[in-house]
C-alpha cells in the first residue's frame, strides 16, 4: 500500500473532511464562549490592546445554549459531509505512513461515521435546551447550567465522535485502541455529567471502573498480539493468524480483546455496568451509549473476528471463536431479555434491551464464522457474509432512530425528575399525545413489529443467519439435520424477541392505561430542540421501515467494502 496518502500530505484533509470539521468545532467551542472584552496591557506602558480572551463576556457568547447550537451545527456539518462523500461516488482512500496502513476511508468506515455523527448530532440537538436534567421549577434559559459547564459537555461529545471515527477508520490495532480510548474516556465523563445527583456519580464511577478494567484487559491482549506477530497491522496480523492461528498465545490475546470489545457492546457477562450507567447518565448520553458506542464496539469486533482471526483463511470449515461467540450471544440475548422483564426503571429496561440487541448482533457475527470457505463454497459464503454484514449495518443504523429516540423521550421526562420509574410514564397519552405515540412507535420498533424499521432490521439479521445456516443447500434440497446449527441461533433469537414484546408492551400499557402520577398532570416542560430530535427519530423509524430500499443498498455497498476482498 505505497499509494496511500501520507499523514498531512496531499489530499489528507479532503479525505478526512468530516473529522476535520469536528476538530475545527472543538477549537471553536474552546474559544468562542471565552471571548470577552479583556485587554492586554503591554508591560511598562499604559497601552491596552484588546485581547478578547476572558473578561466580561457579551450576552451572545455567554448564552447557555450557545455551545449546544455550535456543536449541533458542527455535527450536522460532519454528517452532511459524510453523506456527500457517499453520494459523490465513494473513493477508497488509504492513509499510510510508509508501508504501514493507518486509516482507510471506504464505504464501510463512512457508514459507521454516519451512524456516529447522526447519533451524536441528535444527542447534541436534544441537549441544547435541556441540561441540566435535574428538576427545577425554573425552566427558563437561566435555569440551565452556565455555559462553561455546557461547553464541557459538547467538547466531550465531539472528542467522543472523533475517537469513534478513528475506530471505524483504523487499519492498525494501535490506532484502533487510541480511538477507542479517546471515545471511552469521553463517555466516562459524560456518563458522570450529572455528578450532583446520586445516580449520576454512581453511574460514572461504575462505568469508569468496569470500563477501564475491560480496556486494560483488551490492551493486555493487544500487547500479547504484538508479542506474537511483531506487528499490529490488520493485514499482517491476519496473514500471521492464517499461518499459526491455533497457538495458545494469539488465542489468549483474542479472548482478552473479546472482553474489551464485549464491554463496549455490553455483551453478557461484561454488561453489568451498563444498566447503572444508562440509568444515571443524562438521557441523550445513554442514547449515545446504546447506539453509537455500541456500533463502535461492533466495528472492533468485526475487525478482530472477521479481519484478524479471519474465517476465510481457515482450512477447516469453522473458525476458532465460533462456539465461544455462539454461547456468548445466546447468553447475552437471553440474559438481557430476562433481566429487562424484571426492571421497573425504563432506562434500565432499555439498557437490558440494548444487551439483548447486542446478543442478536453477536449471533449474526457467529453466523459468519460458520461459513465454509472451501473453494466450492467460497462464492456462496461470500454472499452469505455480505448478507449478514449488511444486516448488521442496517441494524446499527436504524437502532439510532428508535433506541436513541426512546432515550430522548425519557430524557424529556427526566427534566421533571421522572423517567426513573415506569409510573412516571403514566398517562403520557393524556399529557402529551404525540410523545406517547412516539414512544409507542419506538417500543414497537424495538420489539420488531412491522412495518417499522426494527422489524426489517431483525428480519435481515434472521435472514442472514438462516442464509449462512443453509449454505450447504446449493442444490435446493437439504434435510433438516444437515442444516448448520447456527440456524438454532435464529430460532433462539425470534423466541427472545417474542419475550421482549412483554416489556416493550408494558411501557405502552402504562402510557395509555395508567393515570398520570400526582403532580405530573400537565404537559411536560418545553423543549423545542429535543422535540425536533424526537420527530426526526419517529420519521426515520417509519421511513426506514416502509421505504428501506435505498438504505439497504447503502449498507450493502458498505458491507461489500469489508467482505468483498475475501
Amino acid at each position, binding site marked *: 500500500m505505497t499509494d496511500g496518502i501520507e499523514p498531512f500530505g496531499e489530499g489528507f484533509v479532503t479525505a478526512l473532511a468530516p473529522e476535520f470539521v469536528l476538530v475545527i468545532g472543538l477549537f471553536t467551542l474552546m474559544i468562542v464562549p471565552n471571548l470577552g472584552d479583556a485587554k492586554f496591557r503591554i508591560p511598562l506602558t499604559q497601552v491596552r490592546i484588546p485581547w478578547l480572551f476572558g473578561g466580561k463576556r457579551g450576552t451572545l457568547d455567554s448564552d447557555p445554549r450557545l455551545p449546544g447550537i455550535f456543536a449541533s451545527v458542527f455535527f450536522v456539518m460532519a454528517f452532511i459531509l459524510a453523506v456527500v462523500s457517499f453520494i459523490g461516488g465513494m473513493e477508497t482512500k488509504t492513509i499510510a505512513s510508509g508501508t504501514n496502513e493507518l486509516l482507510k476511508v471506504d464505504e464501510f468506515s463512512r457508514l459507521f461515521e454516519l451512524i456516529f455523527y447522526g447519533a451524536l448530532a441528535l444527542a447534541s440537538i436534544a441537549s441544547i435546551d435541556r441540561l441540566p436534567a435535574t428538576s427545577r421549577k425554573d425552566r427558563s434559559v437561566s435555569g440551565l447550567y452556565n455555559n462553561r459547564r455546557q461547553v464541557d459537555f459538547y467538547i466531550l461529545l465531539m472528542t467522543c465522535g472523533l475517537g469513534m471515527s478513528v475506530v471505524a477508520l483504523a487499519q492498525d490495532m494501535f490506532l484502533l485502541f487510541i480511538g477507542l480510548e479517546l471515545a471511552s474516556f469521553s463517555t466516562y465523563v459524560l456518563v458522570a455529567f450529572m455528578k450532583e445527583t446520586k445516580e449520576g456519580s454512581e453511574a460514572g464511577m461504575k462505568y469508569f471502573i468496569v470500563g477501564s478494567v475491560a480496556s486494560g484487559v483488551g490492551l493486555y491482549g493487544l500487547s500479547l498480539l504484538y508479542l506474537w506477530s511483531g506487528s499490529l497491522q490488520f493485514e499482517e496480523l491476519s496473514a500471521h493468524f492464517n499461518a499459526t492461528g491455533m497457538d495458545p498465545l494469539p488465542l489468549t490475546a483474542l479472548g482478552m480483546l473479546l472482553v474489551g470489545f464485549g464491554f463496549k457492546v455490553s455483551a453478557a457477562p461484561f454488561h453489568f455496568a451498563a444498566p447503572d450507567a444508562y440509568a444515571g447518565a443524562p438521557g441523550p448520553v445513554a442514547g449515545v451509549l446504546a447506539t453509537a458506542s455500541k456500533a463502535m464496539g461492533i466495528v472492533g469486533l468485526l475487525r478482530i473476528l472477521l479481519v484478524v482471526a479471519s474465517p476465510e483463511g481457515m482450512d477447516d470449515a469453522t473458525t476458532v471463536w465460533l462456539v465461544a461467540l455462539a454461547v456468548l450471544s445466546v447468553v447475552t440475548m437471553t440474559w438481557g431479555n430476562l433481566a429487562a422483564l424484571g426492571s421497573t426503571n425504563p432506562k434500565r429496561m432499555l439498557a437490558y434491551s440494548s444487551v439483548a440487541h447486542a446478543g442478536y448482533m453477536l449471533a449474526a457475527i457467529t453466523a459468519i464464522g460458520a461459513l465454509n470457505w472451501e473453494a466450492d463454497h467460497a462464492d456462496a459464503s461470500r454472499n452469505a457474509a*455480505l*448478507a449478514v454484514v*449488511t444486516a448488521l449495518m442496517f441494524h446499527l443504523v436504524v437502532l439510532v432512530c428508535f433506541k436513541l429516540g426512546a432515550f430522548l423521550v425519557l430524557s424529556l421526562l427526566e427534566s421533571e425528575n421522572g423517567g426513573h420509574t415506569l409510573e412516571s410514564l403514566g398517562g403520557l397519552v393524556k399529557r402529551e*399525545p*404525540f410523545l406517547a*405515540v412516539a414512544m409507542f412507535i419506538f417500543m*414497537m420498533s424495538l*420489539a*420488531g*413489529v*412491522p*412495518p417499522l424499521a426494527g*422489524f426489517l432490521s431483525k*428480519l435481515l439479521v*434472521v*435472514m442472514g443467519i*438462516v*442464509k449462512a445456516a*443453509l449454505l450447504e*443447500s446449493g442444490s*435446493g*434440497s*437439504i*434435510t*433438516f*439435520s444437515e442444516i448448520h446449527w447456527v*440456524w438454532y441461533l*435464529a*430460532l433462539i433469537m*425470534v*423466541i427472545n*424477541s*417474542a419475550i421482549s*414484546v*412483554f416489556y416493550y*408492551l*408494558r411501557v405502552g*400499557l402504562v402510557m*395509555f*392505561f395508567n393515570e398520570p402520577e400526582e403532580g405530573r398532570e400537565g404537559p411536560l416542560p418545553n423543549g423545542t430542540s429535543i422535540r425536533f430530535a424526537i420527530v426526526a427519530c419517529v420519521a426515520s423509524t417509519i421511513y426506514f421501515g416502509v421505504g*428501506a*430500499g435505498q438504505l*439497504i*443498498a447503502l449498507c*450493502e455497498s458498505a458491507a461489500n467494502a469489508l467482505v468483498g476482498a475475501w
Partner: protein
Amino acid sequence: MSTGIDWISLPLVGLPLISSIVLLMFIGNVSNAAREKLGPSIRMVSLIISFIMLGVTTMMFFGQMDKMADWSTMNFGSFNFEFSYVWIESLGIRWSVGMDALSFPMVWLTTFLLPITIVATWNEKNASVYFPLILMMGGALIGVFVALDLFMFYVFWELTLIPMFFLILKWGGKDRKYASQKFFIYTFTASVVMLLGLVTLYLMQPEQIVTGGKYGTMTGRTFDIPTLVSHSQAANANGMWFLGESMQKVLFVMLMIGFLVKLPTVPFHTWLPDAHVQAPTGGSMLLAGVMLKMGAYGMFRLPLAMFPHAAEFFQFWLLALGMVSLVWGAVVCLGQTNLKKMVAYSSVSHMGVILIGIATMQPLGWAAALFMMFAHGIISPMLFAVCGAFKHHYHSMEIGAMRGMAKHSPWLATSMMFGWMASLGLPLLAGFVAELMMFLALWHFLAAENWSVFWMVGPAFVLAITAAYYLWSMQRTIFEGGDDTQPPASLHGAPVPDIADSEKIAMVIMAAFTILFGIMPWIALDMMNGWTVAFFEQLLIPILNGGV
C-alpha cells in the same frame, strides 16, 4: 399484471389505512372538548369510507369491473386485479396484491362487517378515536387477504395486532390490560416462529441467476407467493417433495404454529376467551368475524399450497387437533356462566369444524371449511353484537342476570334467538350448510380411507352439546320467569330499554344475510368450490393418488 385502476391497493387497503391515520393525527392535535364535538362527524366519515369499500367489493362480486375473470371459473394461480410495485428491490420484496376465489369472500366479508360494526356500535364512547381504529383494523385485515407477497403478508398480519390491541385496551372491560397483553404476546410469539419459517422458506428456494423484478438483486430469491406455489407445483409434478422431505415437514409445522394459534385450536386457544370477554363489542365482532379466519386463510394460502406432502403426512394430527377443538370448545361452553365467554368458546368449537374440514383432504371438506369461514364470519359478529347489547342494557354478562328478556326487550330476545339458532346449525341458515358439508366430507373421508368410524363420535356428540348450551342459555335469559319477572338489580329500578335503532338495523342485516346464504349458499359456494376443485386438480390429486 394488469393495467388500469388498482382497485385493491387504492380503495380497499390504502383508503382505510391512510384515512384512519390522517383522522387520528388530526384528532391528536385538537383539544378534548373539540374531540367530543367531532365524534359524530368522524363516525360519519368512517361509515362513508366503509360504504365505499363495500361498494367496490360488491361491484367486484357482480363482475362489474374491467378485466376480471369470473370468480368461480378462475384458473388456479391466476388472480383478479393483480398489481405489483417494487418495494425493496434488493430482497425481492414487492407490494403485490391480487384476489382469487379464496381471498375474495374474505375481503367481501371484511367490507361487509365494517359498516355493520360501525352501525352496531354507533354510540361507542370516545368515538373520534374508536371509529378510525375500526377502519384501520379493516384495512389491515384486507391487506392480509390480498397480499401476494410473503413479506407484505407478514407485515399486515402483524399490523392487525396494533388496532386490536388498542381497541381492547381503551374500550375493553375490567381486565382489559391483562387481556390485551395476553392477546398481543400470544399471537406475536406464534407469528415470529412463523416468520423464521418464512425466512427459511425464502432462502431455501432455488436461487435465480437473473435477478431483478420479483427476484431480489441481492439475494436472487423472491417473496412472491404464486411463484413459490408454482415451484412447489413443479416439484410435485416431478414426484418430489418441494424443498425435500424433512425440511418440508419442519417448515409446515413452523408455519402452522402461527396459523393454529390465530385460528385458534386447543391447546393454543386460551388467549381467545380473554380477548373476547374484555374486548368492546366492535372489537369482538371483527375479531371473531374476520381475524380468526386469517389463520384458516393463511393455511390455505401458504402451508397447504406449498407443502401438500407434509399436509398429508400430518393429516392425522390436523384431524385430531380439529376434533379436540370441536369437542373441547363445546364442552367448556357448557360450564360457562358468562354469556360472552360462552360465545367465544363456541367460536373455538366452530374453528375446529374448519380444521376438520381441512384435515379431510377432500374437495368437499375444503369447500366446507371455506364456507364455514364465511358463514361464521356473518353469524359470530351477530352473536357478539347481541352480547354487547346485553351488556349495555343489563350491565352484566352473567347468564342468570336477566330473565324474561322476551317480555322486556323483544328485539334483543329475537336477535339473540336468531343468532343462537344460526350458530347451532339450524337448517336453512348459513351455518347449517357448512356443518352438513363437513359431516359429509368426514364420512366420505373415513369410508374412503378405512379410518375408524369412531371419529364420527366427536362431531355427533358436539351436535347435542351445542344444542344444549345454546338452548339452555336461551331458556335462562329469554323465557324463564314468566310474566312476573323483575328487571335485574343492576338496573336499579330503571325501565328496561330495548336495543337502539342502529343496533336493530345491524341485527336485521346480519340476520338477512344469514338466511340468504342459508337458502342460496351457492352464491358464495360456487366460487369456493371452483377454487377448491382447481386446487385439488393442480396440487393435491397428483399427491393423494400416490404420486410419490
